[in-house]
């Protein structure tokens, strides 16, 4: 049986990408091998370790357990989409400052899983952060420093949101002629 490739269009880190892919191609292989986004790692390949975690439409997902064809039409973010070297994302900044990594192998997946967690719950307790890490494995840190980093990131992100909200509220007032 001849099997046709399928056209897949996805937005990856804000950029639209289109490709003809073999149906059996895993999303993680599409990202790494076809798009060269090797920040997304493969640890176990059996859906356990979470090193391959990315977000799909904002939700944390293990990209080794999804086909590229299933992602057609989706918005994808990988660790490369978080921040730049000069302007780190609060999650990256906090991992750096709190020493949330040692070898760094798990780190991209852990950060993306935690981005997914903070979307669900922007103000998690320490226990909720630990529960949120069920789907990732880190062989180095013992997790404590990761928890501290996520707590810090959550705080920075919440403050940034608050400022943003104030700005939006102020601009609405201006718009309404109240200021």
């Amino acid at each position, binding site marked *: 049986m001849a099997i046709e490739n399928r056209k897949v269009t996805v937005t990856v880190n804000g950029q639209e990408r289109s490709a003809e892919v073999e149906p059996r191609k895993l999303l993680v292989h599409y990202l790494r091998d076809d798009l060269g986004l090797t920040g997304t790692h493969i640890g176990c390949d059996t859906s356990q370790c979470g090193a391959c975690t990315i977000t799909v439409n904002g939700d944390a997902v293990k990209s080794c357990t999804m086909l590229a064809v299933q992602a057609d039409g989706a918005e994808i973010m990988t660790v490369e989409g978080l921040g730049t070297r000069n302007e780190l994302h609060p999650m990256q900044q906090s991992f750096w400052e709190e020493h949330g990594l040692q070898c760094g192998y798990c780190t991209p997946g852990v950060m993306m899983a935690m981005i997914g967690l903070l979307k669900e719950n922007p103000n998690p307790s320490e226990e909720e952060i630990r529960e949120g890490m*069920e789907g990732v494995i880190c062989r180095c840190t013992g997790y404590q420093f990761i928890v501290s980093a996520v707590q810090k990131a959550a705080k920075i992100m919440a403050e940034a949101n608050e400022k943003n909200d104030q700005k939006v509220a102020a601009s609405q007032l201006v718009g309404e002629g109240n200021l």
Partner: protein
Amino acid sequence: MIPVKFDYTHAETVDEAIKLLQESGGEGKLIAGGHSLLPLMKFRLTEPGVLIDISRIDQLKEVKKEGDRMIVGALMTHNEASKHPLIKEHVPLLADTVRQIGDLQVRNRGTIGGNIAHADPAADLPAAAVVLEAEVIVQGEDGEETMGIDSFIIGPLITMLPENSIVTGISFAIPPAHTKSVYLKYFHPASGYPVIGVAAVAGVGADGNIDYIRVGITGVGDIAFRAESVEQTLLGQKPSKALIQQAAKLAAEEGEMGSDLFASAEYRENLCRVYTERALSSILL
């Protein structure tokens, strides 16, 4: 790990999915979240010729309350179901159970319908399904039919899903308003799947006696079961520590304990007692 070659199509509607199944001549396999199917395909334990992606059928993502039943669309993910206001309010046991499945990433992809259709003997959801007297809503070539959970899942990974049909939703009984519920799970530390999971709903009437009780157990054998001996021992009695201990001793009665590399049958029998006692104590004492 890469699966063997297969073809891929997707369906926009239930009818289209059925048609694609028919056209595939037995080669087609539905894929929803893929979190049971893809791991098997990567290990090449299953090699379907065509995957029919149903994840874009929006009508299967709805939740509605119909009288004393909650109808949950097959494509609701575990995460969505755990947060859904109607589910949290009327069938908190369901929300509680799916919240304990796997991890956040798994709950973002895995679906209620896929969990039931896969019939994994170690899945969490079947415990809640037997307790909430679930009915599986199936759409096939000859229209819709409803199958009780006991006549749908009949063995490990074995269901009575008719050929060329699709599970569109699961209907759960809404327990009486005065009841409390719990899902208590002892998970395998590596896989996250339950070595045992006990789902229970219990209510105490105005006279102080137990007037509603359902206990379901999953993970210990080939299939989830209702612990009816436990229920009968408790019904009509005043809840007490001694009574719950006595009832929990019968927890393994209706089940067949499996023995594997995770746990021996004796150990599982003991887990049935211990986890049933803990689950019931948490809602009755």
